[in-house]
């Protein structure tokens, strides 16, 4: 896990995002426990309350559940929700690309061609 001190994104959010990605990508599996709050704080050299807030955010989003005295474990992920999450990510990345294309004065046709080329390239790889 990478924590940036001066990125403008609160540290708890950085932790939550990275754990979320691991959960949604299936790296952290259903029923698995997240690292202990104090253990993770120690490893990341941050305060306990910051880690706690990250875990609480994940719990609020329904990704993990707190088990009294045992820590936080990963919930079963709804595959529909998972797909939805990924879809939203694709959309926001594409919107960003569209905005950048506008600034660069790219035509719609050009942008679509670029996307197609990139898809072809990643398929080759």
């Amino acid at each position, binding site marked *: 896990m990478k924590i940036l001190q001066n990125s*403008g994104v*609160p540290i*708890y959010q950085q932790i939550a995002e990275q754990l979320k990605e691991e959960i949604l990508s299936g790296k952290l599996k259903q029923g698995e426990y997240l690292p*202990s709050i*104090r*253990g993770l*704080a*120690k490893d990341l*050299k*941050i*305060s*306990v*309350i*910051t880690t*706690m*807030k990250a875990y609480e955010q994940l719990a609020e989003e329904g990704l993990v559940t707190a088990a009294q005295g045992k820590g936080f474990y990963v919930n079963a992920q709804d595959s529909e929700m998972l797909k939805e999450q990924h879809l939203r990510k694709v959309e926001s990345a594409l919107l960003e690309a569209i905005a950048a294309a506008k600034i660069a004065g790219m035509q719609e046709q050009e942008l679509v061609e670029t996307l197609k080329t990139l898809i072809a390239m990643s398929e080759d790889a």
Partner: protein
Amino acid sequence: MKDVIKGNNLKKKYKGFQLDVPELHIPKGFATALIGENGAGKTTLINMLTGIRMDYKGELFYFDEQEQDVDKVKERIGYTGPGNYFLPHWNVKQVEEISSLLFETFDEEKFWDICVELGVTTERHVNGKKVNDLSDGNKVKLMLAAVLARKTDCLILDEPASPLDPLMRDKLCEIIREYLTEGNGEKSVLFSTHNISDMENVTDYAIIVEHGNVVEEGFVEDLKEKYVLVKGEAKDAKAAEKILYSFSGNAYGFEGICLAADLDKLAGMDIQVEVPTLFQISVAVMKANSTLKLH
């Protein structure tokens, strides 16, 4: 939330100074920072909590109000003070011998491990320097070694970071985190500090004291939502100054801390909002409550 230390109506009067803390809560399982100007009452408060000072009014409860036995409370708390509390002519070996007489759980081997690790002595079981001949930083390290060699449930450290170099401050943060991890919610740390930035990443709860009163306290993540750092253009500086807690402006613009709840009052201004650091929040709260006018 459980309290490792709880206080009610704590009062202490000196000439021209009064400490008055109606309610004190030091949360269990966390690191709490006591922040405030010189003379704000941090050391007075710590001395009351550690029993160094007994001439005060009010009540104190320890370990979820579960521990009543004063001797047991003292056995379970590890304290390091500003300066040094060992006799100046003792050498390191004598500090070890006396500590092991004073405290049941004092572990001699652990003491020497920590002395060598922190560089107080170069080897284990040597006489070492006299306390008086140690540098200020090494005096703090020696107190830490003696305290960490015991089995405690709470550390109370009065200004531990000040005499330490940057490397050792980093090490101190690591020591505090390790202590909390090892305790898994059962061990707590309270420290006073002027080095807020150095200690920020190990501070869970902050208590800001000004002329004897607690003027702000809370979990750091909550404080970072309660206050915001505002940056704006010079044209709005005058209007913003009235709303901001701490304010600094120049020809190009201004910046300051304000309550998130007061952001509405800045509506219409061309501002940017950031999450403040604990240092920025502390300075703003201290400035707002200080009798010194440093603007």
